[in-house]
């Protein structure tokens, strides 16, 4: 049942992506339709997650395929919240296709990656996973915002006026939103790492085991912390801030792309 829902969700996200492109291309960024179609996708997506949650418990989200499902859900939800306040239709043009790809990838991966041992199914699991994923979702959006910033900035510098970019938000808004996402993302990431560490300490007795995921998260955490610090104290902003934000997300992303494959670990589903 939920597999059908996920398939439908993916379809709606694809349609939504097309509508984002269409309306941005038509210079009609005020149209509510793209965001509405994305919301419809999110609704179905939520249903699918609830069904899976009811059937298999929250632990299911810790596995690769389901993790993607949960992450894309968080990303779309956070984006829609931002859209409510900031009207960043252009960002939807990145979020919607990404959400589509993540759903398709989730379907392709299916339920691979083993089972979570019963002993691990404590409240720490949803707490740690939700916080960590939420942080990632916020940083993913910061990545998108930075990308749009760089495109807009480049065109202004090179004095090239292509039609599509005329509908991009002003640099000032993008920069402010970038900071806002950083301000939210960093504490979420911090809490994600803390809860993970505490959980590990309680369950396995070691708070920090130098796992690849821990190392990459640690690097990303230091990196984002440094960006946030320079933004607040040293007046880091604009192009450099956007570039660094994107690099930070690449560190996060890097682990997801090859981390589990090359470095089997608890995060990769080996819990013993």
């Amino acid at each position, binding site marked *: 049942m939920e597999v059908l829902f996920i398939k439908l969700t993916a379809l709606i996200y694809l349609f939504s992506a097309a509508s984002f492109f269409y309306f941005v291309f038509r*210079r009609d960024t005020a149209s509510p339709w793209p965001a509405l179609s994305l919301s419809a996708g999110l609704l179905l997506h939520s249903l699918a997650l609830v069904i899976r949650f009811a059937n298999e418990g929250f632990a299911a989200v810790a596995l690769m395929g389901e993790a993607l499902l949960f992450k894309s859900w968080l990303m779309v939800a956070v984006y829609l919240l931002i859209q409510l306040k900031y009207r960043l239709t252009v960002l939807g043009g990145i979020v919607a296709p990404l959400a589509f790809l993540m759903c398709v990838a989730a379907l392709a991966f299916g339920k691979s990656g083993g089972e979570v041992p019963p002993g691990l199914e404590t409240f720490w699991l949803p707490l740690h996973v939700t916080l960590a994923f939420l942080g990632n979702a916020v940083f993913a959006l910061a990545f998108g915002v930075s990308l749009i910033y760089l495109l807009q900035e480049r065109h*202004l510098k090179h004095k090239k*006026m292509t*039609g599509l970019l005329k509908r991009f*938000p*002003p*640099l*000032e808004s993008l920069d402010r939103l970038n900071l806002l996402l950083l301000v939210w993302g960093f504490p979420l990431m911090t809490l994600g790492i803390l809860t993970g560490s505490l959980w590990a300490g309680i369950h396995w007795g070691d708070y920090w085991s130098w796992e690849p995921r821990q190392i990459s998260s640690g690097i990303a955490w230091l990196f984002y912390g440094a960006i946030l610090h320079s933004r607040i104290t040293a007046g880091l902003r604009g*192009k450099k801030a956007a570039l660094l934000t994107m690099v930070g997300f690449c560190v996060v992303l890097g682990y997801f792309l090859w981390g589990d494959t090359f470095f089997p670990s608890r995060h990769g589903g080996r819990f013993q």
Partner: protein
Amino acid sequence: MVQKDIVIVGLNHRSAPIEVRESVAFESDYLRDALSRLHNYPSIDEGVILSTCNRVEVVAAASDSATAYQDIGSFLAEQKSQYNGLALDDHTYRYRGADAVRHLFRVAASLDSMVVGEPQILGQLKQHYDAAQQAGSVGTILHRLFHRSFSVAKRVRSETGIGSGAVSVSSVAVDLAKRIFDRFDDKTVMLIGAGKMGDLMARHLQSQGVRSLMVTNRTFERAVELAERIHGNPIRFEDFPQYLKMADLVIGCTGAPEVLVDAAQVEKVLRERKHKAMFFIDIGDRRNFDGKINDLDNVYLYNIDDLKNVAEENLQGRSNEAAKAESIVGEEVQSFLRWIGSLEQVPTITALRQRFDDIRRGEIEKSLGGGLKTLSAEQRAALDDMTTAMINKLLHSPIAQLKSRNDNDDEAALYIAALKKLFDLEGK
């Protein structure tokens, strides 16, 4: 009923030089008067006068377009009496029927404007239409025609990019500023030089919400003068570099031969303002700002040539969109003609039925008075029913044909003309 035609006689920026246009222009105070004079011509059933700085046109609904052309010609010539120059005819264009409808739609959609896509023309059209309506010179046809033209203009504006992109130097600069900054009420503008161009740009930015404005000029008195006019703060020319760090937008419009602000200076200022973005707009006769400023992060420099290039590109973009707009106009002209056509169909059908029924009644009466004198009341009623049914059956196919011709105007007109001639419906 005789078919009414739509007639336009006019002159615009392409057909006539400004002196000629001015000589026939209608002052808005006299418009009402002029409209009633126009309406007094027997050939003009309905009339609207459109008079802007780029065009003077008379749009009319008339039964006889040839006479209407002549009458509008002399109406305009009368207006022009104070002008003793070339003959007006050389500068006017005339349209009727579909061409007239197309012309008006193109005017409304700003396809016929000097700057294609400029938005003012629609408002002017509405204004002149309202004036005509108040003067009582508008009837069914022009009412429909003008309202149609307004919605065509809206459709063109929303479905094409014809009005998008700024096409003047100062509006391009404001457009660019809007892509850098998202609000202007917390921004400060520094205007270096008291030239006319800078004045204009400053006002343009004020209309976007800029409240804080510094004005500097080599002659301090001129800075004070301009600052007073545009509600800014005058600053001595020697002092302006110190104030630079407060400025988010810097406009240079001096004729100075040397560079007023160089990159090293801006780099220093940037550190002081924690790298908050700056926008330099150089509209001086010579370069007021060092070109290397644009290489610094968070700083954007556009000079007059850059701004002109953008305006040029936007204008080019508009003319590309114009092709789309033309096809929308084409569609709308067809649909309007269908409506005009349908105005004529109904009376023709009614007249046709009437004609047949008249003949039927006449013949029945004749027969009942002669060979069929002996028929009973029931038989008479049956005879009446039978002949009515016969005529209905005979007419069914031609009327159905006529009604279904809606989508092909030429053919519909042909059928209507043929029916009128064959059954002598004219004048009924």
